[in-house]
């Protein structure tokens, strides 16, 4: 998708994606104009978009480079806190840092949102670069646990009393300016997603894939393993950081608890459900998971059939159903919804045929 075709042929998919973007924008503009009526839908869409950015950034490193990293929450925290600190209106700052005050240099440091988001990404990228030097030597599960560890360390530092005057320690940040409209969120996310897609389909992206396939062979064709891994990790973390900034804007108030390991698991879930190594998979997965959780809300509400309350329907039931659905998807779509493929016209046509063939045979 969005692959620049070096031949003359016009890429049909490219046109279709453009059309989707235009139609989506139109829908969002309509929703924005009737904001009060559709605020719930808008908030679901915004959250899905933010998660799509983060999921895709995780996919770069995990799905396309084959480095199993579980540091997402930590890098999101860095991006979120940076963005928040740089965008909370000066007037609200005393109020936000009510307990311990704010560092004098930060008192008046306010930047426009896009710049704050980029700086958030850069901060995350710098940390990734530093962490990457020792950690990227590790393999598979060991890399996963080490990055997870760094994520927790970042969180602990953010919440620590030493950082009170910067991150407001345990008290979190609020009054973060939100999105003015869902279109704004869409534009930020879209820019991130398009750039990530361009990277994945570039020659750099091919190097990433080569490493995923076989590290030793990659080195044998002249790919500098460490540099390329580091590059992938840093790029991924940059967008994770931006995604964290977007999440802060979506939530309007953040604290360190938001960025626990479960957040990483949620993102991983999206990536795997969508299909590891599938761009469209990550995006669809983000909507599937986010909207899924919300659409199931009625399971939490009392439900009566013919006037008789069904006792199963009470708070908590929704998440039970969600977990079961999740398991079903995992068990029946082993490679995720898209299984490493991209959703293209050709793919849709082939889908039925392929499913039929999959039934027979296979190892025990």
């Amino acid at each position, binding site marked *: 998708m969005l692959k620049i075709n*070096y031949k003359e042929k016009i890429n049909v998919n490219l046109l279709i994606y453009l059309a989707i973007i235009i139609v989506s924008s139109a829908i969002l503009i309509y929703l924005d104009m009737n904001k009060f009526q559709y605020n719930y839908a808008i908030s679901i869409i915004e959250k899905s978009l933010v998660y799509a950015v983060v999921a895709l950034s995780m996919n770069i490193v995990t799905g396309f480079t084959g480095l199993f990293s579980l540091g997402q929450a930590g890098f999101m925290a860095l991006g979120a806190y940076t963005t928040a600190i740089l965008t909370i209106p000066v007037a609200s700052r005393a109020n936000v840092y009510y307990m311990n005050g704010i560092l004098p240099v930060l008192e008046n440091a306010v930047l426009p949102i896009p710049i704050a988001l980029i700086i958030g990404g850069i901060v995350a990228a710098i940390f990734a670069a530093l962490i990457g030097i020792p950690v990227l030597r590790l393999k598979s599960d060991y890399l996963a646990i080490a990055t997870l560890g760094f994520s927790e360390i970042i969180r602990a530092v953010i919440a620590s009393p030493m950082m009170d005057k910067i991150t407001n320690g345990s008290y979190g940040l609020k009054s973060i300016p939100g999105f003015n409209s869902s279109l704004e969120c869409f534009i930020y996310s879209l820019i991130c997603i398009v750039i990530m897609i361009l990277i994945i389909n*570039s*020659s750099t992206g*091919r190097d990433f894939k080569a490493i995923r396939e076989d590290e030793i062979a990659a080195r044998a064709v002249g790919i500098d393993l460490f540099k390329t891994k580091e590059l992938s990790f840093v790029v991924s973390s940059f967008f994770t950081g931006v995604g964290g900034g977007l999440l802060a804007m979506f939530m309007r108030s953040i604290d360190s608890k938001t960025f626990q390991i479960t957040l990483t698991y949620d993102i991983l879930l999206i990536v795997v459900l969508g299909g590891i190594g599938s761009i469209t998979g990550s995006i669809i997965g983000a909507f599937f998971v986010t909207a899924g959780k919300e659409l199931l809300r009625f399971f939490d509400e009392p439900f009566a059939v013919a006037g008789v309350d069904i006792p199963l329907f009470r708070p908590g039931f929704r998440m039970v159903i969600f977990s079961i659905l999740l398991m079903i998807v995992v068990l029946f779509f082993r490679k995720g919804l898209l299984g490493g493929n991209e959703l293209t016209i050709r793919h849709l046509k082939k889908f039925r045929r392929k499913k039929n063939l999959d039934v027979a045979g296979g190892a025990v």
Partner: protein
Amino acid sequence: MTENVLKLVDMGIRFGGLNALDGLNLSVNKGEIVAIIGPNGAGKTTAFNCITGIYTPTSGMIEYLGKSIVGEEPSQITKKGIARTFQNIRLFKELSVFENVLIAMHLRYNDNIFTSTFRLNINKEKEMREETKRLLDSQDLYKYRNDIAGSLPYGIQRRLEIARALATRPTLLLLDEPAAGMNPQETMDLTSYIKEIRDKFGLTILLIEHHMDLVMDISERIYVIDFGKLIAEGSAKEVQNNPRVIEAYLGVDGDA
């Protein structure tokens, strides 16, 4: 004509208590096809791994075109012109045949993430793709270009691996058991194929092989190693009749 391409001087490497290679001396001249043979576990593959930088030898020297390459990164060594294939085929299995070769072109078209992401390298990319097409064409692989490498028949995978190595434009090509798992007929085809690419690309070739027909047929010189040490060296004839080689490697009627 006798320009030296590769020279190993007293090269040794240890794994824990094991002396996998022990004072190995070997040299390859430009345009030659040289074979390394020896029993299983003799250290042949290990020698390749040392030359290509995957292992760093614990002692000795490796000279390539007169300069030491010990301690350099594998990718660096490849850039200098040494390419290789692997004993157990190592293709980018999930990628297409075209991509497999295209990736090997990267090292000659320096791109950074910025130019490649924003497609500022569009001309280079075009050129690379053209060149890939030409290479695949010349190796009779173009018809497989969109196939996923891992799904190809074994023999084709071997050829693809060689094509990928050629894409780096090597001076010296190392082939590790290229005929393993091939039947005698396929092995014969491979023999002429290796000669062909040597001439066409002006290569120097160093290969490891257990198929004696192939080895005897194409190699100008043969090194025999056992327990990490050189036990014999010379032409096919000389080696074939060397009692030590017969005892350690070929067996009594060594034409198996």
